[in-house]
């Protein structure tokens, strides 16, 4: 796949279709690839695509499509949802991207490998359904499925939503069980839910990684950075501010979040932030009809829309566990 992508990128650079390529650059280790823009065939020698090229590249297109010329972007199905949503919100100029859609079977999560007790990873080789992990302390073999990123385990869709051409196979929308954990929480008592979130959110260090990586968070100036907004802060001074930040952030992306899972991927404290977004998605689906952000570029989002017979907020009382 990596070779095919590099070849295609070089062709498209050569024939002038694009003048830059957005992809991933080889990292220091086997798993730490960095998103990068390549502007020559020479630079493309550093290009990498494997089980660890997990970053959603679509957000970079906000900036990149303001530059001269067209850029080639290699996008996974997840990323194409984000791109559509960004196109809908006029944040990305779709005409200035040449999207090569790439099929995706799910990405591996190095944290999961480490969680298996494997330390000192020097190299990772994919061999069939397994990874052979070379470490300071000897070689180990793990099944790919055991270290699949959590968001990929409950993948909602392997279908590319927008592309100019496809490399590999396009997939299908999956009837996933991604709401299971949300449902599990919903079925807890309020006390249990409170304890759960208190524990999770208390670890937050307000590094803003979740916000800054989020393809829905592309505000010119975030309310949390804006001293005039009345809620700006750089660090959560107490548990209220932890909740405030995450609730408002989730609310601001409600109806726009494509559920790409980047927020949880990048959280240095391992907080399952995607559950907040997914709660909104689940509520929207249940209360206002199925809606998948990023499926198209023109529909009205659920929060900029209404029907005359929408449910009343008292529905929150009427359902679920107390």
């Amino acid at each position, binding site marked *: 796949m990596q070779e095919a992508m590099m070849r295609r990128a070089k062709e498209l650079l050569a024939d002038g279709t694009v003048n830059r390529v957005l992809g991933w650059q080889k990292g220091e280790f086997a798993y730490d690839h960095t998103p990068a823009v390549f502007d020559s065939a020479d630079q493309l020698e550093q290009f990498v695509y494997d089980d660890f090229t997990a970053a959603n590249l679509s957000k970079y297109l906000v900036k990149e499509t303001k530059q001269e010329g067209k850029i080639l972007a290699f996008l996974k199905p997840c990323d194409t949802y984000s791109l559509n949503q960004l196109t809908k919100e006029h944040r990305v100029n779709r005409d200035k991207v040449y999207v090569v859609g790439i099929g995706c079977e799910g990405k591996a999560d190095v944290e999961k490998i480490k969680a298996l007790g494997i330390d000192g990873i020097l190299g990772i080789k994919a061999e069939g359904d397994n990874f052979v992990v070379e470490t300071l302390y000897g070689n180990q073999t793990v099944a790919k499925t055991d270290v699949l990123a959590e968001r990929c385990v409950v993948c909602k869709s392997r279908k590319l939503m927008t592309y100019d051409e496809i490399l590999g196979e396009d997939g299908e929308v999956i009837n996933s069980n991604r709401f299971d954990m949300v449902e599990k929480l919903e079925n807890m008592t309020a006390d249990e839910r409170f304890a759960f979130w208190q524990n999770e959110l208390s670890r937050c260090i307000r590094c803003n990684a979740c916000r800054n990586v989020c393809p829905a968070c592309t505000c010119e100036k975030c*309310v949390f950075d804006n001293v005039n907004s009345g809620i700006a802060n750089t660090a959560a001074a107490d548990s209220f501010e932890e909740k405030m930040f995450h609730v408002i952030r989730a609310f601001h992306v409600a109806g726009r979040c494509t559920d790409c899972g980047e927020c949880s991927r990048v959280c240095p404290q391992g907080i399952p932030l995607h559950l907040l977004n997914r709660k909104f998605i689940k509520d929207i689906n249940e209360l206002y009809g199925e809606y998948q952000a990023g499926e198209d570029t023109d529909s009205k989002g659920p929060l900029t829309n209404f029907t005359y017979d929408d449910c009343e907020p008292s529905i929150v009382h009427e359902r679920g566990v107390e």
Partner: protein
Amino acid sequence: MQRIGVFVCWCGSNIAGTVDVHKVAEALKSEPGVVIATQYQYMCSEAGQTLIKDAIRDHKLTGIVVCSCSPRMHEATFRKTAAAAGLNPYMVEIANIREQCSWIHKDMEVGTEKAIILGRAAIAKVHLNAPLVAGESPVVKRALVIGGGIAGIQTALDIADAGFPVDIVETKPTIGGKMAQIDKTFPTLDCAACILTPKMVDAAQHDKINIYAYSEVAEVKGFVGNFSVKIKQKARMVDPVKCTGCGLCVEKCPMKKVPNEFNLGMDKRSAIYIPFAQAVPKVATIDPTACLKMKTGKCGLCATVCEAGAIDYTQQDSFIEEKYGAIVVATGYNPINLDQFDEFAYNQSPDVVTSLEFERLTNAAGPTAGTLLRPSDGKHPHTLVFVQCVGSRCDGAEKGKSYCSKICCMYTAKHAMLCREKYPDTEVYVFYIDVRTPGKNFDEFYRRAVEEYGVKYIKGMVGKVAPQADGSLLVQASDLIEGEQLKIKADMVVLAAAIEPDQSARPLATMLTASMDTNDFFTEAHPKLRPVESPTAGVFLSGCCQGPKDIPETVSQASGAAAKVIGLLVKDSLTCNPCVAHSDELMCNGCSACEKVCPYGAITYQDKEFRMPDRTTAIRRVASVNPAVCQGCGACTVACPSGAMDLNGFSNSQIMAEVDAICK
């Protein structure tokens, strides 16, 4: 830091009875920024206002808080007071310590404590108030009237007579509307054409009126005082400037079998036609669905005979864009489709007609040249049955309309009376549920039909009309007064069909962002006090588009709407409500969320070049709010994730300051 004055009103004992006003003033005096806090028996009185004005001058106040009754009561009063003392009127905040405090609490301590908190909240808000200056937007001194019936014509004439140019857009080839199809008018029985056609001519000849006949509104942009409307002129295939209306083409046209819509299909017309003799503009129109030349390319006879050379088969729809300060909707009505009222056999017998068809059958210019003849065999009818409330006053929308169509009682009385007058040999029955005659000389008119003309009014409804083999109609009805079921052998049955708004109204309402009720009648801004205005500023209502009306009422509403339009157009500019949304362009993402929730279409986007924080320049899509259109609801401010959108007078920081003060 603001210099704030606090003025606590006793409102006699209304406030002072349960709130210790002295204590409130004393407590609020120590709030930051407060330089004077005082109390007085009646702040809204002349003396109270003078007290405020003096304090503003003496203490160089930059903001004032009045602790008094509801702002709904006296906010405007105190704003004027402030303005009179040279303080911006939007630097005034009211703490509602009467309706929301003294009147609901009995305990002096509780009331006083709450009044202090409400006062603090108002002080916290006024700290963040900014002087607001109402913007102005220029008014285009031209009006558009949509619909060329009597409502539209009257409105246009009145506006034009006041000296403002008016355009009438009429979808039919001629203006005149329904009234042109009517024979006589109640309760005076003068001939409709005799009173309408002079008005049509007046309109056509008025130097301030421009008629776009055979045209439709395609797009409306803009806002009160400054609408931009795209009008589609449908292709007539005839040059209206060259055509003299001589009618030779109509005479020579070989295709003469087209149902004549002006006579409701009861006779035929040619493919090129002039709807009726007094049509305005009197210009021929080619019906492309019937014209042989258009359909097969063979014919072209009209072009050959036309001496003016007006025929142009290649004509296309054309578009005109024009600016208007005001728009009047006068789209009128239509009788409802009677397909679902099978019991009246409307679709089974040509002798069952609607009242509008009956008008044509009695009209001298109608298919029978004014002689009442049965449509089926052209014979003179002897027994006529009129049925009222067909499709009106129905429960639920499936079977008909829930409302009373208002005009049927009177025109049915008129028809019945005219029938008896012209043809004394006829027997005329009117079946009614109620006879509603609340108009000047209306009941007298109805009584005349009964008393002088011997029309048989029967309380009860017709249950069934069955066409008989001999061509007669068996009408089965109940007579509720006599308590019997009647079976009448009639020659004709006339149905007073309910009326409904014209189909064009709904899409038009969408274009105008004007609201409608469930029956597709336009909603008025206030049912009693603003009956000729739509809630959408600059859009006015005339005639049946707002609800069923007879001619006199339509004409008065038309003149009323005209008066409102004139009142708008005489202004050179409009003062806007300054409490409107505004977008901080540096923070705007251009994501369109605000635009999607704006009920007024007040938000537009433009691409602008900006110097970005990283010193580069970039073209960014940013929102801008048109302050003349924005009504200040604030929906956009919450839809905006970056907080670029804020609302004057109710800004995020102001509301949060109030929250803080209350929760303190």
